[in-house]
C-alpha cells in the first residue's frame, strides 16, 4: 500500500472512531459518585457518626446511578423531550393510579400537586382537584405524564415515561385516576 493511502486510511479510521462517541467507563458513572458497584442498590449516602472521624456509608433505598449526575466527569446525556402516542384503549386502573400518584416512593405526584383528601397539598404544580372541568383527553394526559417537556420546554415536572420512573401501564393507571378528579 502506498504511504499516502495508508495515511488516508488512518485518517478515515480515526474519524470513524470519533463518530462512535467518547470513551469512558463502561457504564459512564463518574468516579466521584457515592457509589458501590458491588452493592445491592449501589447508590450510597454518608452518615456522620458522633465523635468519629469516619463516615458511615449506607445503601440508598434505590439505585440512582443510571441517570446523569452533577459530576464534571459525567458525560452522559439525558433523554430528550419525547413525543408519544397513546396506543390502543387506555386500559388504566384508577385505584392503582391513585396508589401511584399519592405515594412518595412511586409517582410522588402529591409532592407538588394538590389531590382531594391530602392534608399536605403540594403547590409546586397546578392543583388537580376538579381536573374534570378541563376535559383533557386521555392522550393529552398520557403525554403530560410521559414527558411534559413536549408542551412546555423548561417545565419543572419530571418526565416519568421518558426517564423510566414509571412504566407505561403505571402511567395509564395514573391517567385513569386523573380522569376521576
Amino acid at each position, binding site marked *: 500500500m502506498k504511504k499516502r493511502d495508508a495515511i488516508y486510511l488512518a485518517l*478515515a479510521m480515526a474519524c470513524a472512531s470519533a*463518530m462512535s462517541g467518547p470513551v469512558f467507563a463502561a457504564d459512564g458513572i463518574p468516579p466521584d*459518585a*457515592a457509589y458501590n458497584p458491588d452493592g445491592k442498590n449501589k447508590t450510597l449516602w*454518608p452518615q456522620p457518626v458522633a465523635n468519629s472521624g469516619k463516615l458511615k456509608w449506607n445503601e440508598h433505598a434505590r439505585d*440512582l446511578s443510571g441517570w446523569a*449526575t452533577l459530576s464534571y466527569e459525567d458525560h452522559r446525556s439525558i433523554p430528550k423531550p419525547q413525543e408519544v402516542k397513546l396506543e390502543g384503549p387506555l386500559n388504566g386502573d384508577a385505584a392503582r393510579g391513585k396508589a401511584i400518584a399519592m405515594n412518595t416512593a412511586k409517582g410522588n405526584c402529591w409532592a407538588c400537586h394538590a389531590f382531594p383528601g391530602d392534608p399536605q397539598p403540594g*403547590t409546586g404544580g397546578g392543583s388537580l382537584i376538579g381536573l374534570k372541568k378541563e376535559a383533557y383527553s386521555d392522550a393529552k394526559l398520557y403525554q403530560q405524564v410521559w414527558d411534559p417537556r413536549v408542551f412546555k420546554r423548561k417545565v419543572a415536572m419530571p418526565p416519568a415515561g421518558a426517564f423510566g420512573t414509571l412504566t407505561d401501564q403505571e402511567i395509564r393507571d395514573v391517567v385513569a385516576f386523573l380522569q376521576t378528579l
Partner: protein
Amino acid sequence: MYSIEKNLKAGVLLSLCLGLPSLALAEQPYRESVPVPNGLYTPAAASSDAKLTNTWQYWKDPAKLNTEFVGNAKNEWKLNWKFKDAPYNSDLHGGHLAQDRGEELYKGLNKSGEFANCLGAKNGNLKGLRLTYPHFDKAQGKVVALEGEIERCAAKRGMELEYGSYDNSAISVYVGAFSTGMPINLDVTKEPMKTAFERGEQTFHLKSGRFNMACATCHVMLVGENLRGQISTTHFGDVGHWPTYRSKDELQGLHVRFTECNRNSGTQPLKPGSQPYVDLEVFLTALTNGYPVSLPSTRD
C-alpha cells in the same frame, strides 16, 4: 488501482464531513438547565435575594426578625430559618457539644501550632479565618473549602478526619464560631474564584437524576411553594450556619447536606469534597455576602 485510490479519498472526505460534527456533538451531551432569572446573581450577595423571593427584607437584620412569622405555616419560610439562631434561640443543642468536641480535637492537633498554620491562621488567630474560605490554594492548584483543609491538615498529623465526618464538622464548627457575627465577604469578581463561582452557578441550575431536577428547581422555580409538607427557602444568605446540628440528631456539613438534597430529588449523590460540591459552596458563600456567620447552629 486508480478507483481504489479514488474511493479511499472519497471515504476520507466523507468521514471528515461526518466525523468532525460528530466530534463536536460527542463532546456535548444533552443536558437541561433551569434558566437563571435575569441579573439574579449580580451582585453576588445575600441582598440579591430581593430579586428572587424578597424574603431578604425579613431576615437581613439578625436582631430584627418578625417573630409573628414563626410557627405560621404560610410565612415561616420567609425568615430563612434565622429564628433558629441566637439571639432568638438560646437553647443548648448538639452544635454546642460539637463545638466542644472540635475544640478538644483542634487543641490536640495544634500542640506545635502546625495545624493552625496549615489552615491559614496567622499566629494561631482563628478570628475571621472562616471568612477566608473557600479560596484558591496555589500549592494544590485548586479551590479549597474549610473542611477539605481540615481533612488534609489533620492527615499531615496522622489523624483521619473524613470530609463530612462528625469530627471534621466539629472542628469546622469550632473554627467557624470565631467568626460568628462577622459578615461573609467572598470576592468572586476575579479569577480563579470567578470561574469557580460560575461553575457553582451552572451546577446549581443543572438538571440531573431520575426526576430531571436541579437545585434551582426547588430553590428558584418552586421556592416558597409547598412540596410535600415542606416549603423550600431561599439559597441566599444560608451558608454561614454550616455545619449545623440537625434535629434528627446529626451534625451535618454542607456537602453531606448536598448528598441529602440530591437523594431527595432522585439524583445520584457525589462524595463530600468533590469539585462540583466545592464550587457549589463557593457559589452559595458568595450569595451570603453581607450576612454574618452564625455558629454553632441548629436546624430542623
